[in-house]
């Protein structure tokens, strides 16, 4: 098999006495969509924040991108390596314009740091008409994000992730607070990721959203990987049964 885009070896993270995740090992391959399931507090968000460079893992954990070990991953470094994250609506600056949000933390600027505002506006306009489906004149790159609907805002967050040539796209509960048709759009988008030979980690509570679009499912429980299997090997009903078992016992019945 090809080199994995991302490999975590023995990654743990504790906050004081609390072990948020423990000895997690996982691989994400190019062109693969991996569902990350788990209850509240299972450690999904912590795991994501380690991959995006926001949290440092505890000593001993190793992170590899394309087979190369990365020491001291930071958010800018992770973005350079092609990790893009869509958080649950949290990562937009509401009072700012669309273009400022699209280019947040990665503004187009020259060496001295002076911005090319015109270029960012034009790029935003292009993305809005070509990718987000904004045709109305009332919505433009200067529009402030807080005037938009939940789906439009999620569209900005996803477009932002795509624009920067992401290798690995992480979606942290992207369908929260979205309408049915908006959810479908997001799911269609996720289903289209493998065709571009990019990888995706899709985190969601809703197994009915996750199951149809993923290749592989990893179940986290109390900070540990409780089970991992390919979609081909498990039916939706079987998966739900297993999740109940995990919730009760913390272990996945491999023979169930």
């Amino acid at each position, binding site marked *: 098999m090809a080199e994995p885009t991302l490999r975590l070896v023995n990654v743990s993270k504790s906050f004081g006495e609390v072990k948020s995740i423990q000895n997690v090992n996982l691989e994400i391959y190019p062109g693969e969509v991996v569902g990350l399931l788990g209850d509240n507090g299972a450690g999904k968000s912590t795991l994501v924040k380690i991959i995006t460079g926001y949290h440092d893992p505890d000593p001993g954990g190793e992170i590899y991108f394309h087979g190369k070990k990365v020491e001291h991953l930071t958010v800018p470094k992770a973005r350079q390596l092609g990790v893009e994250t869509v958080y649950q609506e949290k990562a937009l*600056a509401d*009072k700012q314009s669309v273009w*400022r949000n699209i280019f*947040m933390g*990665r503004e187009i600027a020259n060496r001295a740091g002076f911005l090319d505002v015109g270029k960012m506006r034009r790029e935003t306009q292009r993305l809005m008409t070509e990718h987000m489906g904004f045709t109305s004149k009332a919505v433009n790159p200067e529009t402030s994000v807080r005037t938009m609907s939940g789906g439009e805002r999620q569209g900005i967050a996803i477009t932002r992730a795509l624009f920067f040539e992401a290798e690995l796209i992480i979606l942290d509960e992207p369908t929260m607070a979205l309408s049915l048709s908006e959810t479908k759009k997001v799911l269609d988008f996720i289903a289209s990721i493998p065709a571009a030979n990019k990888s995706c980690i899709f985190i969601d509570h809703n197994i009915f959203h996750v199951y149809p679009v993923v290749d592989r499912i990893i179940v986290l429980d109390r900070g540990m990987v409780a089970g991992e299997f390919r979609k081909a090997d498990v039916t939706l009903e079987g998966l739900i049964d297993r999740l109940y078992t995990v919730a009760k016992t913390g272990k996945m019945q491999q023979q169930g």
Partner: protein
Amino acid sequence: MAMQAAKAPTAQRSGFSIFVRTHALQIGITVVAILLWGVFAFFAPTTFFNKNIYQAFMSTTPFFAIVALPLTMVVILGDIDLSFPSIMSWGVLVFSWTLVATGNLWIAFILCLVAGFLAGMLNGAIIVRFGVPSLVVTIGTSFFWRGVVQVLTDGHGTSLLPTRGTFFYELMVGRLFGFIPMQMVWTVVIAVLSWVFLNRHRFGAHVYLIGDNQESARLMGINVGSRKRMAFAIVGMAAAFAGLIASLEVTYYWPTLGEGYLLNTLSSVFLGGTSVFGGVGTIYGTFVASFIVGAINAGIVAVGLSGFWTQLIYGLIVVGAVVIQTVVSKRVQ
């Protein structure tokens, strides 16, 4: 053809309405400034049609406008700095002592700016490192720097008379073409620099994003701590510079320098439409608002009211303007 002709005005209208929407606060403050000038000019035409009053504005408004402009960035960050009046005095103390020790105006000038920069940096460092709200930290450092100045000077001032007649003096507070006070030129320079850094530089882009949503800025890889430290350091440096200009204007350094500037400066920032909640604000607004604040004082006396009315009217205008801005900005979105 007909369709095109019909379309063009719509596009223009929407372009205009977009401009109005995105610049509502700047338009508002400009209207307030013009109205206020109209009222003063109507009731006191002899004063307000005489150039002397404008020279007076240009000479005294910079004392607080120079701090208000960079302070706008700190407020956009969602923070506040109350320590700049004390830093004004601390910076000029360093200036006067260096001048006495070395006799070199330029070294004294540079050390004055450095002293202000470091004092501001200290504010930022404490706020970032320990996560204490800036309101509390800068109340503390305000007392601290005032205390440092009082202990070191024993309450005595220093004459800056030796600066008179030097090129340095002319450069700081001389009169350009015999009319425009140099501090006004510096205010414009600082306004332009602040505008460029806030609107056309990565630093300013990050300031807006942090003030709007600090957590998301961090998630998107923005170095929140370093941006904050720098913003406070710039205010500290500007405070030292403003203090120097105010002292040179009277060629005397009083240890109490800066007292009395706190509210003028803050009201310039808030009157200019910068939101105390962070994420919103403009340099243009602060610039115009500084001159409104500066004009009220002179205007009230000129229209025949006693100087005792000044603060009352300040209060009405500031509270009124801030309420109107909040209402307007809620409507516009």
